[in-house]
């Protein structure tokens, strides 16, 4: 794997391999010394053109546990805010000698433009681009589902027949896109529940079935219900009347959570708007994987960085 730009272009075998390597990394994360020498001497840049403390910290922890040196580049207050182009920023970093770029950018497609341009020749990992993709989030979500469903027998498995309901702002969500493509590649069935204003105006967006009625969707007894974050700016732009109405129709309220099956997983990519798209009791329920998702995020990002920067398919024997 040279780059990780999108889940849409991952094969089933590639995806399972990344998840299996992530299992190895998760094992490392349970040790007393949570560190591998795999990327010693390599420098990874977290190139963040958009604020995202959580994702940036997760990538930083992942790189450091692989012994890489990490440079954090936040666009705010940097030369970028003075009008420097992406090309110049990247060439500047390239001149300093770096081995990989983790990029978060508000422009859809920016990681792909970077990977395909001749500005720099290093692996590029997409940490979220505009309203396009967030592949490591989808991988950590799939990893979390696989672990909950298959436990210690997860290695080598996919998500065949798993029914996943994704609720909320699909239209603007990179998490929804990456998840829909990856989960379907892994054999899961994906359904969206959202008002039409928050869905692309096409039939079966990203190959998923669509419900405009959350209760009808929940009545189909899904294995996973994933809530998407509602961004503040959507509330001012006529996508729905107000937060109260959104919660009433599309929130995982306490009553809806109580009615879920015992085995249904409750997922959220974070950060949560408690009381809006997810009730506090639902977020804290034993069926909720919200905290596990964060922990698994580090393992999955270790796997992605390892595979991208070493170009190898199997992790080296961990050195204690």
């Amino acid at each position, binding site marked *: 794997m040279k780059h990780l730009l999108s889940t849409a272009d991952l094969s089933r075998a590639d995806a399972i391999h990344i998840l299996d390597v992530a299992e190895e990394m998760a094992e490392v994360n349970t040790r007393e010394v949570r560190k591998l020498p795999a990327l010693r001497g390599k420098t990874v840049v977290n190139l963040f053109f958009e604020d995202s403390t959580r994702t940036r910290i997760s990538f930083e922890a992942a790189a450091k546990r692989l012994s890489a040196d990490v440079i954090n580049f936040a666009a705010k207050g940097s030369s970028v805010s003075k009008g420097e*182009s992406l090309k110049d920023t990247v060439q500047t970093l390239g001149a300093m000698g770096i081995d990989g770029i983790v990029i978060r950018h508000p422009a859809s*497609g920016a990681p792909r433009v970077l990977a*395909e341009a001749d500005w720099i020749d290093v692996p590029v990992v997409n940490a979220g681009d505009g309203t396009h993709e967030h592949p490591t989030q989808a991988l950590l979500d799939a990893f979390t589902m696989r672990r909950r469903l298959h436990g210690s027998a997860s290695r080598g498995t996919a998500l065949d027949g798993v029914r996943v309901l994704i609720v909320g702002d699909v239209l603007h969500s990179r998490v929804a*896109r990456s998840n829909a493509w990856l989960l379907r590649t892994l054999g899961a069935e994906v359904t969206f529940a959202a008002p039409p204003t928050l869905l692309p105006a096409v039939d079966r967006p990203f190959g998923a079935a669509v419900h405009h009625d959350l209760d009808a969707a929940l009545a189909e007894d899904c294995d996973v219900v994933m809530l998407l974050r509602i961004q503040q700016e959507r509330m001012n732009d006529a996508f729905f009347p107000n937060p109260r109405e959104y919660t009433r129709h599309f929130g995982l309220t306490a009553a809806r959570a109580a009615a879920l099956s015992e085995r249904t997983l409750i997922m959220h990519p974070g950060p949560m708007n408690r009381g809006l798209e997810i009730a506090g009791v639902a977020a804290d329920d034993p069926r909720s994987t919200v905290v596990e998702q964060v922990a698994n995020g580090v393992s999955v990002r270790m796997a992605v960085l390892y595979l991208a920067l070493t170009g190898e398919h199997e992790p080296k024997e961990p050195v204690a």
Partner: protein
Amino acid sequence: MTAHLIRGAQLVDGTRADIRLEGRRISAVGSGLDAAGATVVDADGLIALPGLVDLHTHLREPGAEESETVLTGSRAAAAGGFTAVNAMANSSPVADTAGVVEQVQALGDDAGYVTVRPIGAVSQGLQGTHLSEIGAMATSRAKVRVFSDDGSCVADPLLMRRALEYIKGFGGVLAQHAQEPRLTIGAQMNEGRLSSELGLAGWPAVAEEAIIARDVLLADHVGARLHVCHVSTAGSVEVIRWAKSRGIDVTAEVTPHHLVLTEDLIAGVDGAPGYDARYKVNPPLRSREDVDALRAALADGTIDIVATDHAPHTAEAKCCEWPAAANGMVGLESALSVVHAAVVEDGRLGWSDVARVLSEAPARIGQVAGHGQGVTEGAPAELTLYDPAAVREFSVDDLAGQSQNSPYLGMRLPGRVVATFHLGNPTLLDGRLVDAETVAAHAAAVRAGTA
């Protein structure tokens, strides 16, 4: 007086003839014409088209001379077989006063490669709130007859109504950039399945169609002429067809790129780069169904003309992430070959139709005097010699303007413009531009009456 004898050209009706140019006129068209005193140009195998007229060109001067100037844009036009261009008003300062339009016209006259006709802004600063000094521009030395806020839509329905009425009083036409602004906030590409998959904000077809529907009704109501710029959707074609069937005085243009390119290019299939900003243009590239509808509309006359929307941009305005990139493509140099590929090769248009949609009709709509009168005895000596048998891989060597943001680089295109004659003299000969000093000197001599 200079004279040229073009020997053995094919006229648009398929007959073969010699064409003799004397001064600014075509003095004779026929077989076996006398070459005495004339420079002979061998046109065996070449089609003689009336000089092409572009109703929609961005020359970028004043204000963005790093991407194009009146001179460099005029050279691009001559290289593409054009003898007249209409320069859009979205310069800086905006062409909303007599001073700016006279300056643009004067720069065009000095360059001498083509007739440059300035288009005046409809609203002050293209802001869509107050009418610009339309009367001053119409009665200036530039005698502006086409008014447009192109790049922006005249969205306010009351201002649109007033503009249609007011421009009518000066015998002009309003050329509308049809784009409902509220429906296209942040829009990046055609709205549909592909935009949702690429995560780019959609530019829905209805945002164009709703404005055209409103505008044809307004034009009908006030009895004014309306011209619709760069029609890009099948639905727009239906609205215009309906309006014409009702006798509404509307004309419409399509760009060469909307006749051949589709939104799929943005996804970057088959190893091509994705999000390649060369394909970013406004209105955006649409679907294959839209392309087919536009070709059919050009063939049946629903769409009157082809206009390039030549929009030069510097490399840095395109060498960046998609949403940050500028809208627009250069198109003057490639227009005739693209029309050839899109609608001539499949037999929808003959060469007389090409002469109509790229010369006669745009000259009539834009009231471009001295152009669009065909290759006939007594007509102005404005013509283009085109080799329809040539095939080339389009490259930067085919671009003659200052910018290289062409979507056709690397594509195989049919045909080649071999020569262009403006004011009776060549601006392009053997596929090479005549040097700027010679062209400018000839134009100056014509103005002084000494040519």
